[in-house]
């Protein structure tokens, strides 16, 4: 086990420093790039926070759907292949629910402000 602070805490401290102390000093194209940099750190923080839990649930769903075991990336590859071959489709029980749950977890990390995501999130609420 590694020592603390955790990666989430460390990344967040850098993002907060850039956001609060550096942003006011910079303008023009560099300011745009700084915003992108902060967005990246925020994304990494969200991923580090949620990934373990969402991957575990994804693996559980994939094992049930496919009837095989493996890592999250191996199981995703297997599902992709089965859909490509036509062995699994939207008529397969659980597929639509799995794809929705997985995609919602990705958006929560990648683009939590994306309008389609917010609309679907309000449907879940």
């Amino acid at each position, binding site marked *: 086990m590694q020592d603390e602070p955790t990666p989430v805490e460390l990344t967040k401290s850098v993002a907060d420093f850039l956001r609060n102390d550096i942003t006011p000093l910079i303008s023009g194209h560099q300011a745009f790039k700084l915003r*992108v940099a902060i967005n*990246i750190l925020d*994304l990494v923080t969200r991923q580090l926070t949620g990934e373990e839990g969402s991957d575990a649930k994804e693996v559980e769903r994939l094992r049930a759907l496919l009837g095989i075991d493996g890592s999250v990336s191996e199981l995703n590859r297997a599902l*992709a*292949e089965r*859909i490509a071959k036509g062995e699994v489709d939207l008529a397969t029980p659980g597929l639509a629910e799995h794809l929705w749950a997985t*995609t919602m977890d990705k958006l929560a990390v990648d683009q939590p402000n*994306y309008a389609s*995501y917010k*609309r679907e999130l309000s449907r879940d609420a």
Partner: protein
Amino acid sequence: MIEAELSRSVQRWCKGATGVTGAAKLSGGASQETWRFDIVHPDGPIGAILRRSPKGYGAAPTRAAGLAAEAQLMQLAFEAGVPSPRVMHVLVPEDDLGTGFIMQRVEGETIARKILRDDVFAAARPLLARQIGGILAGLHRLPQDKLPELRSRGATQEIAEFERDYRSLNWPKPVFELALRWLRDHDPGPSAEITLVHGDFRNGNLIIGADGVRAVLDWELAHLGDPMEDLGWVCVNSWRFGEIDKPVGGFGSREELFAGYEAAGRTVDPARVKFWEVMGTLRWGIMCGGMMQRFREGPDHSMERAMIGRRASETEIDLLRLLAPRGS
């Protein structure tokens, strides 16, 4: 300095011109650049735009029509009354500016979010979906015997091409697989009518003023194909910039788009439009993957490109909303 070459060039073909001022690069990758400048003229300055591939960058990417074709299409559109800048000059070797063309600058806004939010466009916004229908009808009616040589692409070929692009990324995505299956199952086959297709007609590639659309830009993906492709692409959610209930670029409804198109004497096939909207959503998703790959392999190791890779999931949720909608 580019102003010296531009000055010599304009004096050759623009009667009375004495030089240029204010040259500034608006955008540019390694192979293509856009510059704005003013032609100095006794009757007053003339706003102009240069689109060029610098010397040594002649070859266009495989999907691109090329700058010479782009110039020809814009001029044809202009003559047919489709909102377009007037092409003033096609570059020749003695210009020493590379290959490309110079066109009249059209004032207005291209940044989609500003067009969707700023007050100055408030009166125009509700009219745009219908107006875009009319413009696309005009574009699809451009005389085919005058078109430059263009690649020809139908639905079946496009599916195969995107599938190849996707597989080359080695980036297994179950939602993309599902979309590819759906596209193959719903392939409408060859279009009964083949027309010019703009190929990238969307919010972001239009110059818009308080009075509506002033110019259609970015013709580099023009080709011959199913005219419904343009109607589908303009509806892709990625080009609604958050206004997700207004499919046509965030401006208005499909019904308004279709009404504008049909009022101009052409017919809409809504099933084909839907097919191309799904195809377009997947297309943008695969392009995001391509950006990720270029970020990884260089030479463009930029943060911006890296982050575009993380936008593929936006197209996944949009594909699910199209193919497996939840509730009602």
